[in-house]
């Protein structure tokens, strides 16, 4: 997600909203020709037959950028919901901004995110160990079990503060169900 200033966030979108009225009219968040954005509106309009989220294409992402918006193209399918008469759609996206750590494993060179002190590398399993100053062996405990002396800690994990975001998209019918999804999964909640 673009952090456009220190801890100033603007969601990068992989999907944009789309809606179709019962008379056949269609509206969507971004103009496919210009990338210009249209707000959903202060109220959900009457007479909707379908609502959904359409995937951002590479071409649209470029046009969005020229309008100051950020798009992440995805090959995911559109998620569209037909609405029966009287049904009220639930449609929004949810952004979570994390303040955590980015960790570099000096053992395998992996880089990963952590929401707390990293205890081990999830890729290679490396973790803090202690080198015994007497026998020189690496041990899993502070005190060398053979020499009974305090070892020197060796931490293969370098952490630095990092911030990142996650965006999920919601689509459902009020009082009935809601689909929660992103580019890699879809969960239906009742």
């Amino acid at each position, binding site marked *: 997600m673009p952090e456009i200033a220190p801890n*100033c*966030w*603007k*969601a990068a*979108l992989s999907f944009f909203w789309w809606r179709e009225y019962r008379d056949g009219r269609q509206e969507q968040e971004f103009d496919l020709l210009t990338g210009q954005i249209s707000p959903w509106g202060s109220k959900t309009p009457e007479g909707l037959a379908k609502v959904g989220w359409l995937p951002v294409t590479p071409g649209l992402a470029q046009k969005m950028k020229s309008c100051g918006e950020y798009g992440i193209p995805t090959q995911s399918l559109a998620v569209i919901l037909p609405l029966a008469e009287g049904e009220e759609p639930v449609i*929004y996206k949810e952004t979570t901004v994390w303040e955590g750590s980015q960790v570099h494993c000096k053992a395998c060179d992996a880089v990963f995110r952590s929401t707390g*002190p990293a205890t081990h590398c999830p890729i290679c399993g490396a973790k803090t160990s202690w080198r015994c100053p007497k026998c020189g062996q690496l041990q899993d405990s502070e005190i060398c079990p053979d020499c009974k002396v305090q070892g020197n800690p060796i931490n293969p994990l370098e*952490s630095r*503060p990092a911030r990142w975001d996650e965006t999920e998209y*919601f689509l459902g019918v009020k009082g009935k169900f809601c689909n929660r999804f992103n580019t890699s999964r879809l969960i239906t909640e009742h």
Partner: protein
Amino acid sequence: MAATVQIIGFYGPAPGVKTPLTVQRYNTAIPSQRDPGLSFPNNIPPSGETYRSCWMYTGAEITDGTYSQLTNWRWGTPGNIKDPAVWDLGSGKVQVALKDTGDHGCPVASYEAPTGVSGSYGYDIKDPVNGHTYYKGETTPCADADNYTTTSPLVFDTTVYTPASPLKVTKLVVHQLVLEDDSSFGEKAEIACFLRWQEI
């Protein structure tokens, strides 16, 4: 519809200075600093006592962007701050202020400068005399921040913010570090907190 959202804190004497957050450090600088480094540390109390950091305020400001509504602002932690492998707080914790009814966040207009003894400890949010006016009379005690995770975050502001809203700063989560005599001494690693909102 993407709004531009800045994570903020408030510091100093009332009405407080709104400050973009990159990192926020629990400390005992009265009245409050965002990150005084290792100055004004939190101290382990003598046996049988409890020490606290000064109050911390965390919220968000909608600074720009095209959107219709932003609402349902939530805050949370990894849920394991107290653990021996994390901050090893013993029976201490990070506590967060709650209201009996309505949103748990503190309106910006109700900001109060943290009170306490600079360099030693801050007063409890709920202290009957020196506590936070917006919270100290509430029946509901402060909660353990470890209870608020990605699956059960603290809803601190349900206001619906629109482009027409005169104030685009959310209510503020009020939290503080609580140290008991069995909390472990030493510099602590950075932990991750999150802020979440709905947008259309």
